[in-house]
């Protein structure tokens, strides 16, 4: 058996990219005496062997099944809940032989407090400047899908985190949608994907409704949209991470407004405020052919995208500071506003320049809870209005 695999390894063609893992795989490393001495060659060779191993995906699936057979209820830090609902529970960082495993509910209260303080100051500054503001922090699958988690699962940890956040952000423009989403999920609505950490288009719609209500404006009702199923074979990020290859796929919908068609809008990808690319509407259908189908919303992440309605002047302008959760909300907001959509993760020069270049009527921040507790990008929410 061992000999069989050895031969198979050398015979089969190398893969360059693993779609499932979203990274480039190691190919046959270059040999040189220097690299041999320094140890680089052997490290790369180890990686090469691992990455190009025959039937890699089959083995990954097998291992996940074995872990389930051992009643561990999760694999690679992802919990397998009812009806194929996957939820990330812990993250694993591997550094040679060192493993660092972190439960996603472990958060540093002091650090989180500091970040939320920065957000609150941002809130005050905008309010003082007369700009409408709304802070949206979408929850994680493990928070929303509590009812699908295995018996005894410590849901109280996620409740504690949410209580902490609610307490910190009391009397601010924080949009608390946690209870609403949980109720809808429990009622059977398809608001979060099962195999991906994002919310579905329906979930994004509900978020849009809340944002509009917070601005005292009227959102389009659900009936005003035609829901087009553009894929029923979406396997998302949590599916990749979990190794549970046998779990059922998700469906992706685009919501098209019945009165205003998508092609009345133009999305312009900008760099340093100059256009580098543009497309009609909100979706990149090419991305549907790849594994990460969610990337078809707004064509995935770019630092700055402007969305305008063709031949229409005088609409209000919104600054949407976001992570990928904002991509499925933007098409709804675009029905009412011109949007400057800026990615909080890819920003390199701070957000002040956007305020200097545009006059915003409203600002919306959509930044996922997982991002908030695992990185410091929320501290980029700094602006100065003194002229």
């Amino acid at each position, binding site marked *: 058996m061992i000999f069989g695999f050895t031969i198979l390894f050398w015979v089969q063609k190398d893969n360059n990219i693993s779609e499932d893992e*979203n990274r480039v795989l190691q190919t046959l490393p270059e040999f040189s005496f220097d690299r*041999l*001495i320094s140890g680089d060659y052997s490290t790369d060779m180890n990686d090469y062997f691992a990455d190009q*191993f025959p039937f890699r995906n089959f*083995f990954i699936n097998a*291992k996940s099944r074995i872990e389930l057979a051992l009643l*561990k209820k999760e694999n690679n830090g992802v919990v397998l809940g009812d009806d194929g609902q996957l939820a990330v529970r812990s993250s694993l960082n591997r550094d040679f032989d060192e493993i660092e495993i972190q439960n996603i509910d472990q958060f540093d209260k002091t650090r989180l407090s500091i970040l939320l303080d920065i957000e609150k100051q941002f809130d005050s500054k905008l309010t003082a400047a007369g700009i409408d503001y709304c802070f949206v922090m979408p929850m994680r699958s493990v928070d929303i899908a509590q009812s699908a988690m295995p018996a*005894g*699962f410590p849901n109280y940890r996620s409740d504690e985190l949410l209580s902490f956040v609610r307490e910190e952000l009391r009397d601010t423009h924080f949009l608390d949608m946690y209870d609403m989403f949980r109720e809808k999920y429990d009622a059977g609505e398809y608001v979060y994907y099962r195999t991906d950490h994002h919310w579905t288009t329906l979930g994004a719609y509900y978020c849009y409704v809340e944002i509009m209500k917070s601005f005292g404006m009227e959102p389009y009702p659900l009936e005003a949209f035609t829901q087009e199923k553009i894929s029923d074979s979406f396997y998302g990020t949590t599916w990749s991470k979990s190794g549970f290859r046998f779990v059922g796929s998700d469906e992706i919908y685009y919501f098209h407004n019945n009165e205003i068609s998508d092609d009345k809008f133009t999305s312009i990808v900008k760099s340093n405020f100059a256009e580098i690319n543009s497309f009609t509407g909100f979706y990149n259908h090419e991305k549907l052919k790849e594994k990460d189908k969610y990337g078809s919303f707004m064509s995935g992440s770019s630092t700055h995208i402007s969305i305008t309605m063709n031949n229409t002047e005088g609409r209000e302008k919104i600054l949407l500071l976001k992570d990928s959760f904002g991509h499925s909300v933007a098409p709804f907001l675009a029905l009412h506003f011109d949007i400057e959509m800026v990615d909080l993760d890819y920003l390199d020069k701070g957000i002040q320049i956007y305020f200097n270049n545009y006059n915003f009527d409203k600002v919306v921040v959509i930044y996922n809870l997982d991002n908030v507790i695992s990185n410091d990008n929320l501290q980029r929410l700094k602006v100065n209005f003194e002229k």
Partner: protein
Amino acid sequence: MVFSSLIFLFLYLAVTITLYYIVPFKFRNLVLLIVSLLFYGWGEPLYIIIMIYSIVVAYVFGFYIDKYRDTDEKKAKMFLVISLVLNLLALFVFKYTNFIFDNLRVIPLMSWLPDTNIKLPIGISFYTFQIMSYSIDLYRRQAKRAANIISFGTYVSLFPQLIAGPIVRYKDVDDQLRKRETNITKFASGVQTFSAGLFKKIIIADSMAAICEYMKNTAMYETTVVGAWMVVIFFTFQIYFDFSGYSDMAIGLGRMFGFEFLENFNYPYISKSITEFWRRWHMSLSTWFKEYVYIPLGGNRKGLLIQFRNIAIVWFITGFWHGASWNYILWGVYFGIILIIEKIFLLKFLEKIPKVFAHIYALFFIVMGWWIFYFRDLNKGVDFLKMMFGFSNSTFITGGILYDIIRFLPLVIIAIIGSTPFPKKQFKMLTEKYSVARYVVPVGVAVVLFVCTAYMVNSTFSPFLYYIF
């Protein structure tokens, strides 16, 4: 290179076995030497030089020890001492310099000492001790001089036991280096032992390691008595299955090439006393210390007080051998003290009480020993100790911890059963009783290899959750 890696199993081992069996008998040691050096150099290209230095020193001096041991004992002893000093020097420089300097630097007079950061060459603790056993066994006339430097080099660098033991004394393999028999039964037995070891390491030890790490992080966030204990208990399992798994792999690989190495572990966790524990745990190390330190110091033949002194010395060194850090020394001394107490009166007492209490006593002190071993940072260790005994505002248990413990229960049960002789006895009985076992066992081995491969492939699987570049 590591045994529990895909490249070892599916490339290196396949090629090595092929080469070994193609080549005629007289070249087999050479083949082993070359592949072993390649194995070692794969991970540490430059440190191979240190090992070669040690091999050459011991071989050359061994020649002179052999020459004079019957004629001029004083000269022979001189060569022995020089050889040992030169070998130990390498070990000390590379393993203990950082530690010694760090501790000396605290004294104001010595604050000029540089902050060294010498990296530890893998396996140096093991092969240095093996080399020393050659010199000493030769001097004591318990072994013949190595046939040639290839044979000696093979002994030292043999890849099965180079990295993590068992520590093979020269006199135990002297004959086997000159002549050893290989046949299909031995080879198959070696494969079985190797697979069992691989299973122990990958399925049990690595899982325990991940769980231990996870529980440790959780304990910082949710301090509970049970959670803190779980960290130490899971580590107790981890280290046994890791180490004994590696030893099994080493013994299995050795047998595949015709070598019989001595067992290194004999179900240490069924012990009823610490004395018994150390006769079952890492036996090759305790044997080495007994033969080469304890007995030369007088052992127990010079009265009780000297015996205690000898025990104290041996255990200090044992702890220190495990690592250049105070907690390892403490670990050694800890066991030394318990052993002395047992020798004075406790052993007799333990024999009189029901066995189950003796087990509990032994397991408690074994687990506490691992607590010392695991926390290299003594401050953190003390924090955990407080958690374990309820002194730090910790609750007893939380729902989350209970959920996790229940999840790990099947694995824990497997680990407990695996720590006893039960599986092996059953295996022996079944294979002797049923001739159909001849067909079932290879299938079983294939299944084990399949499962281990799946786990190994998964551990190289590292999805990057959000974006490509």
